[in-house]
């Protein structure tokens, strides 16, 4: 196994090296800017990126932008090996939860003061780039999850938790073969969606500034209890089936904009729409999406910031966000182009105004996967009450982070 892991690492490093050396056709340009991003989702997305690149080169004579595209699943591994071997791009895409890690160990640069107008961005999206009060990247796009509902089973989407519980129970009561809602699981993915519910009850996961873990407080406990309650009318043996919502076996599900196109494509007969997440005290949502950062060991930081600023400029941001499968992170772009996203996407766009960033601690992915997700699962499976599960999880998180609050 050691052999396998290490030789894989070595092979990946080699691949990354090859990728970085590939294509030196822009020899004529005085400066080459290397930019890493996720591989195109669609051929159209590739064309958009190409157009943006050409536009930047036209506006900056003597500059060539070399874009290296890497499949999303391999991206972090390849970036890690590239950083380890020193073949670092000037700038690149970075997953939101990695920003804190990379910022704190000096892998990425702080955004120079005056580079952008911070008020131009959505607060949630921008905050995913903030670590200890400093800004380390620019949000390219952002996304969130909403409530998908089957219009035949759910004529009016629930707005509040009480309505959500009532509708869920009614669907299952009417037909025991149909689940009310696909309740998320206690895995990494469920752990990513859950904070949207915690915030919907007015809570927070943690306060990094005060070094306090807050997901054992009443709003979080209520949010987890909601999932436990929903499960009563949404048996797992129905919802663990393949695509239960799409196959009409579940009245509702919680998912993101990427599923809208998938469902329309594969299940053209399904009558569905999307509503914002139901809430208890205030509308809220989780957040995901792609940030762009400048690497400390890159050669052209000034040019790199110029490029990132260009990508997030309201003039280009909508095209880029659509190519990446998210929504514009700049308010001006989103408001101007809201109509082009279509009615099914309106709910997401609305909810992104109130989306909350994950706590900016470097260990967050591990806390999410190894502590929060199992706590959610143990409450959902009935092994512990929501309060017990979260108290235990919060204590473990405090130990791991060395926090007292």
């Amino acid at each position, binding site marked *: 196994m*050691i052999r396998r892991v*290490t030789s894989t690492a070595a092979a990946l490093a080699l691949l990354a090296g090859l990728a970085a050396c590939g294509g030196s056709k822009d020899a004529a340009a005085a400066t080459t800017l290397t930019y890493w991003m996720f591989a195109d989702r669609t051929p159209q997305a590739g064309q958009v990126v190409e157009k943006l690149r050409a536009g930047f080169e036209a506006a900056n004579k003597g500059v060539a932008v070399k874009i290296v595209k890497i499949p999303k699943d391999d991206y972090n591994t390849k970036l890690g090996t590239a950083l380890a071997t020193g073949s670092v791009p000037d700038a690149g895409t970075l997953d939101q939860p990695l920003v804190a890690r990379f910022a704190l160990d000096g892998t990425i640069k702080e955004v120079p003061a005056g580079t952008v107008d911070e008020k131009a961005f959505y607060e949630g999206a921008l905050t995913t780039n903030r670590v200890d009060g400093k800004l380390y990247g620019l949000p390219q796009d952002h996304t969130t999850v909403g409530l998908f509902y089957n219009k035949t089973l759910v004529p009016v989407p629930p707005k509040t938790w009480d309505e959500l519980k009532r509708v869920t129970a009614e669907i299952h009561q009417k037909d025991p073969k149909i689940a009310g809602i696909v309740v998320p699981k206690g895995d990494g993915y469920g752990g990513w969606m859950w904070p949207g519910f915690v915030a919907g009850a007015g809570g927070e996961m943690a306060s990094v500034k005060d070094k306090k873990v807050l997901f054992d407080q009443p709003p979080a406990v209520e949010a987890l209890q909601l999932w436990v309650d929903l499960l009563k009318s949404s048996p797992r043996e129905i919802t663990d*089936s393949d695509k239960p919502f799409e196959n009409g076996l579940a009245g509702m599900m919680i998912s993101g904009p990427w599923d809208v196109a998938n469902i329309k494509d594969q299940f053209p007969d399904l009558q569905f729409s999307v509503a914002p997440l139901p809430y208890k005290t205030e509308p809220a949502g989780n957040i995901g999406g792609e940030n762009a950062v400048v690497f400390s060991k890159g050669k052209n930081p000034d040019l790199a910031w110029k490029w990132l600023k260009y990508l997030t400029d309201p003039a280009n941001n909508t095209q880029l966000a659509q190519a990446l499968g998210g929504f514009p992170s700049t308010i001006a772009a989103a408001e101007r182009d809201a109509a082009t996203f279509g009615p099914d996407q309106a709910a997401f766009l609305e909810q992104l105004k109130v989306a909350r960033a994950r706590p900016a601690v470097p260990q967050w992915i591990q806390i999410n996967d190894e502590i929060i997700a199992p706590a959610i699962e143990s409450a959902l499976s009935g092994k512990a009450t929501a309060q017990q599960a979260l108290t235990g999880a919060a204590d473990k998180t405090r130990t791991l982070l060395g926090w007292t609050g």
Partner: protein
Amino acid sequence: MAVPVAERPTDTPRPGRLLGRPGRWRRDHLVGWLLIAPAMAYFIVFLLYPALAALYYSFTDWDLRTAPNWVGLANYTDLLFDGAKYPHFWQSVRVTLLYTLIAVPLTMGTALCQALLLNAIRRGSGVFRLLLFLPVVTAEAAVGAIWRWLYDPQYGLVNVVLGLAGIPRQNWLNTPGLVIPALAFIAAWQCGISMIIYLAGLKGIPASIREAAIIDGAGPVQRFRRIVVPMLRPTTFYLLVTGVIAALQVFGLVYVIFSGGGGRSVTGGPEQAGLTYVLHLYLFAFRYDAMGAACAMSFILLVFIMIITALEFRLVRQEAS
């Protein structure tokens, strides 16, 4: 170590003239080294160096990005004793041991049955051999997709077949207690390589022994117990040792079964019931930024595998009788 191999072709034609000509001897050596150089380069660059580097990194806090800091044995002691830092380390050990205990006998049993059946038929054995071997060469992602469908709680064929026998529907991949048996079953389905090796073992049993046994009045069960099992002992031992080593390192199968697409992160199935040792290691190496700890895990596994293998060599009979 491979030098004699290279020497042989040059010294066979004129054996008498080799003596007393040191220059020639040295040149032969050089040729030998040159011939094995590609293999040696591969061995050193891709196996030996990474393994030694991993050993070094296992004593550091390396995160792939920043310069590693020496932490001594901390990774090892934390993994073994610090439940706050590595809450699922021992869970991954338990999962892997359970998987090994179920998957290895199941795989070997299935392989032996298939080999016996293939050995018994006269015509069409080539076709069956191909069909039974196909699962081995099927891409892992496809295997994952197929079996997620077969185990589906609503539409899955596995439940349909069990339903015929009156066994109630199960939610195989989402019930903690059923995850490992379900995975072991997939492993047994992929037993083609063991099957081929058993088949070769069976072909190696002289027909005369079998004929003599028939003449002496031994029935099929007796022949199996008194001839086939003892004669196959070296084969069985080989498959046991390699099977246990492979099972302790199971990764791809779990990864594809639980990744499932849709941006889902692989955290090892319901209640970490499918979090095998190497999946846990992978998560720390590439998701939680702890390459140093992951390297330490791989060396703990190495030592464990060496102990288990040594025990097998001591406790299990290896010779045919």
